[in-house]
């Protein structure tokens, strides 16, 4: 199942015969002997394998940090990959120097990953804000330093170095990124032409790969022996607005949603919600359709979209279908979808009312939820016009709280009705005990998260004491 794949790694054109169902990390380490990129977990949870991927779109290269351990070679075709080896110069660059001075590297195993995350941040921003830079390494685990020294290095970087806006040229002049970057675009264009010719044949195979962040954790061995279609390599990667409706292309990544300025107008807190979902590296790869189809009962996107009463547009060779997302989930990991169905679009009405997403996990960030929940509520003079409530981790599927919503619709927002809504919601859930918490805990937590929605929506009317 080998295929010839072309890509640029650092400053070199790489053309290799390789199984497209293998991951970029193995190509870098085993084939190209670029061992600066490390393997710490192979499941997206440590960041030691972080590299930068540049994708050509509309005549520009967009760079982003990804976990190479879950990044399918099929998706790497036609891209520019930057590894630690590609950014090294004779001396230490400013980021490296700060890490050095602050002692931000102890055993050193995590360090290249941190450096790459930070470099990616520089490449994707033109101004540095401390909190955002910290967020750029939130997907990198360091077991040695306790992060204090890393935070000091970041603080120095933001305050001392580039407090004003900067351009790629500035980064190059300061030795922070290599000087061959400007030439990469032309070189990628010539490769990309080859790719588009090939995309036809890619389509014929059947296992669909989005970002691969779920599949390559679950069944990497199978993928190696399967025919694969890399749909993230194709289009459907747009966020469109028509009237009061939003169309999310199926390969839109979590991070695209998080950073969409249009969506931020409707969801002012979106950045906060998405910070709780996976890590930047994963969000840069993970697609929205992948999240829906993997049908995890705690899928963050599914829970959010359920509370937006989203619909999905599905197609296969014969037909196109549209149905409500809440009708898609049948049972644990069972979907109302045929084998050859592909999700094309996810559609929802832009909200008039209030929206909130809550998630609690053992660790606040980069952890799978114990329980999560989203709620949309539209009220007029204290009377609920529309309400959608969803919950994850409390049933075999991402759950739409039908009866609770029905009850609250048309009701006044007051203490009694909220308590009653929560009581009804409780009858709809059936959490189980597992490594993310006992059933009792999840039950209590879910009720608490519902309270949290109301406390956020109606801080004036509803106090914590009312709901105890």
């Amino acid at each position, binding site marked *: 199942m080998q295929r010839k794949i072309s890509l640029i790694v650092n400053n070199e054109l790489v053309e290799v015969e390789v199984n497209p169902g293998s991951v970029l990390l193995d190509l870098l*380490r085993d084939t190209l*002997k670029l*061992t*600066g*990129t*490390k393997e*710490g*977990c*192979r*499941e997206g*949870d440590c960041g030691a394998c972080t590299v930068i991927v540049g994708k050509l779109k509309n005549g520009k290269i967009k760079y982003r940090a990804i976990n190479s351990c879950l990044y399918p070679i099929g998706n790497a075709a036609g891209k520019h990959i930057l*590894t*630690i080896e590609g950014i*090294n110069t004779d001396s230490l660059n400013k980021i490296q120097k700060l*890490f*050095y001075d602050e*002692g931000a590297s*102890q*055993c*050193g*195993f*995590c*360090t*290249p990953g941190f*450096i790459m995350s930070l470099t990616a941040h520089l490449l994707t921003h033109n101004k540095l804000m401390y909190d955002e830079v910290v967020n750029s*390494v939130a997907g*990198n*685990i360091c*077991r*040695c*330093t*306790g*992060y*204090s*020294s890393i*935070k000091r290095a970041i603080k120095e970087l933001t305050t001392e170095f580039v407090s004003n806006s900067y351009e790629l040229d500035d980064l190059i002049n300061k030795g922070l990124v290599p000087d061959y970057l400007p030439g990469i675009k032309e070189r990628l264009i010539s490769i990309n032409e080859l790719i588009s010719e090939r995309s036809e044949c890619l389509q014929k195979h059947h296992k669909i790969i989005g970002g691969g962040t779920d599949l390559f954790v679950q069944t990497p*061995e199978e993928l*190696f022996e399967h025919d694969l279609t890399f749909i993230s390599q194709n289009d459907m990667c747009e966020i469109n607005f028509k009237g009061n409706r939003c169309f999310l292309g199926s390969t839109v990544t979590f991070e695209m949603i998080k950073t969409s300025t249009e969506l931020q107008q409707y969801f002012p807190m979106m950045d906060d919600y998405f910070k709780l979902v996976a890590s930047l590296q994963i969000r840069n790869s993970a697609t929205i359709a992948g999240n829906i189809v993997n049908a995890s009962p705690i899928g963050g996107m599914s829970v959010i979209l359920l509370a937006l009463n989203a619909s999905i547009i599905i197609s296969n060779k014969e037909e196109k279908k549209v149905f409500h997302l809440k009708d898609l989930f049948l049972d644990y990991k069972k979907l109302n979808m045929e084998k050859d169905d592909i999700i094309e679009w996810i559609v929802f009405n832009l909200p008039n009312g209030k929206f909130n997403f*809550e998630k*609690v*996990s*053992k*660790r*606040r*960030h980069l952890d799978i939820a*114990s329980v999560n929940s989203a709620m949309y509520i539209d009220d007029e003079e204290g009377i609920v016009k529309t309400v959608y409530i969803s919950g994850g981790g409390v049933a075999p599927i991402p759950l739409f709280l039908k009866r609770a919503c029905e009850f609250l619709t048309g009701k006044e927002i007051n203490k009694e009705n909220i308590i009653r809504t929560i009581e009804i919601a409780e009858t709809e859930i059936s959490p189980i005990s*597992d*490594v*993310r*918490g*006992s059933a*009792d805990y999840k039950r*209590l937590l879910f009720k*608490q*998260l519902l309270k*949290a929605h109301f*406390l956020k929506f109606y801080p004036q009317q509803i*106090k*914590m*004491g009312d709901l105890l």
Partner: protein
Amino acid sequence: MKNLDTEKHIKGKSLFIDDFPTPDGTLILDVFYSSVAHAKIVSVDYSEAEKLDGVKKIITAGDIIGENQIGGIIHDETLLAENEVTYIGEPIAIIAAKDKRTAHKAKSLINIKYEELPVITDPKEACEKGELIIPPRIFSCGDIYNTWDCCDYIFEDTVETGGQEHLYLETQGSIAIPVEGKKIKIISSTQGPTYVQKAVSKVLNIPMHFVEVDVLRLGGAFGGKEDQATAFGAMAGLAAYILQRPAKLVLNRHDDLVITGKRHPYISDYKIGLNKEGKILAYEVSYYQNSGACADLSTPILDRSLFHATNSYSIPNVKSTGYCCRTNLAPNTAFRGFGGPQAMFVIEAAIHKAAEEMGIDVEEIQKKNLVSEKDVTHYGQVLNNCNAQKCFNQTTDLYNYNQLKLDVKKFNSENDQYKKGIAIMPICFGISFTNSFLNQGSALIHIYTDGSVQISAAAVEMGQGVNQKLRLIAANVFSIPVELITVESTNTTRVANTSPTAASSGADLNGNAVFIACNNLLDRLINRAAEILNITDPKLISIKNGTVYISGEKTDLAWNGLIEQAYFNRVNLSSQALYTTPEIYFDKETNKGNPFAYHVYGTAVITSKVDCVRGIYNIESVKLVHDFGKSIDPVVDKGQTEGAVVQGLGWLTIEEIAHNVNGKLLSDTLSTYKVPDIYFAPDEIEIEFLEDSENRFGPLNSKAIGEPPFMYGIGGYFSIINAIKSFNPKLEINYSAPITPEKVLMSLYGK
């Protein structure tokens, strides 16, 4: 001060086991292990796996040439299981194949049949059934039984602490290369090169001088590679030796999590007696250590729990009993603190409970009972240079503890949804291996004719900065730029009979050895300089900043010139030295003695904030005064402290090792076992170096740093408990760690 290791790390140029270029034809190994916790092996069918293209051989116990035994202290651990398996993850066979994928696939084709036997996962159950690895150990002083009657208050409780996964970012691994003449070379990620050497020699039935073990660096260890790296070195050695081909074994993360042991979970029963004023009069405690299926290092770990039963407190009547309980879990092992943290948690819980019940402040009891100069511990050691009170008082003064406490109170009175908690955590940690003979460090130093210096020592670099400290010590003795000095890999052909780099002692023992070796060389050089300069009394000669001085007057003779001349005059420019810690001894019959060279002290104040709607929390700040002695490298020491604090906090909060009743590890991936990330780490860790701390046992007056600050994390636990209490004052606290968000929420709304 150029840190050569750091520079390579930052460029991604540092080699770890999986990065070494290996010779063509290197076989890739994978470990086939037990999937049940206790069973007789009825049959294993390797035929399908062996048929797979690219599989070279599947090696089983029957292939072992020498002894199938790798137990370090107690010989109860086979390299490969033969007839019976006693935990999930116990190695049964080694697959040697052409690549990772093939080896992994072969593993899935092995067909094994078990006859399952009863499984024990609970240490108390093991104890009841007589499954003890050694007879109970008791350390005591005074007479508790006659003291209870004198106590105004007596409290009893049972407390638990959970396990902890090391999560060194580099997983276990080794490369083995056959060498001519039936010899073998092992490149290992181990804290104990000599342990690997011994095990390989035993398994292959070849003498130790046929085995070379080389350790360049470790991608983190934390105790997890002290004993447990040995098996993987031996497996690689066995495969390479039998097949006469280089072989590499690097565990994937999942297998590493399943196969290797962790910090020991403890269940502890205590009884504490105090007078009205809060003075602790008697303390009785029993530790049920969940040791796992083999002894590993459980017995010295248990001893350290007994040593640290009273943490920083002077208690006249103590009886502490420890049980090493054999269970059907992977053998638990060394982890930063080595049993100390588990014991310290218990005494802190006892004090917390006493304070709650007596209605006085915890810190009042803590302060009233702190150890002081010349106090005698319950194991009979007189405390010299005791800095416990100094650290405690400086912490409360410097950080204005009373004000911090008032701030927390005020915050809590003004907030419904969020509550804060604050706690103080003093520490007192003994430095030395408690097995006295291990307290030896050695170094071999060469000076080359161009004046460059090369150090080999028994210490293994694993991120703790020992190499940099050794360089600085040598630079200090010679008074030459540190750039002239390198530290080589730890190699058993250059430095023999190494003690493991553990017990926080790597820099102490080997730093002192370097110190001695450098001084030997310096003596020779000074004598030579005196000859060159025609000075009769060499005492007048000194070297400063790379130049020779006579009675404080600069000469033209520089370091390189001196070395060159020394060479031409056939001066020995190499020196080997052994350092042994003086004055330590311990009687294992009476359990009394002077086991520690010295103690490390410190005190931290920890503040945390709990979200009472969601049951989540964060540690806001950790502020501490710590006794570093005279730090050799403050950047390194600060980094060790910060890292240890966060790891300690992780142990007590979000790091939860979960097993089911069948002994299966449930937290067997990084998606289910969560260690601190950058957001979890406290916003603020303030570290003050205690002034005027002397330590004649540490090189250049320094103190050991690796483990002690880990235990500040215990204060994080109590700060969270205190926050919960202010939301739910009626709560009867169940002192059990880790305090996960689940436990917090259940406590906020529980009774």
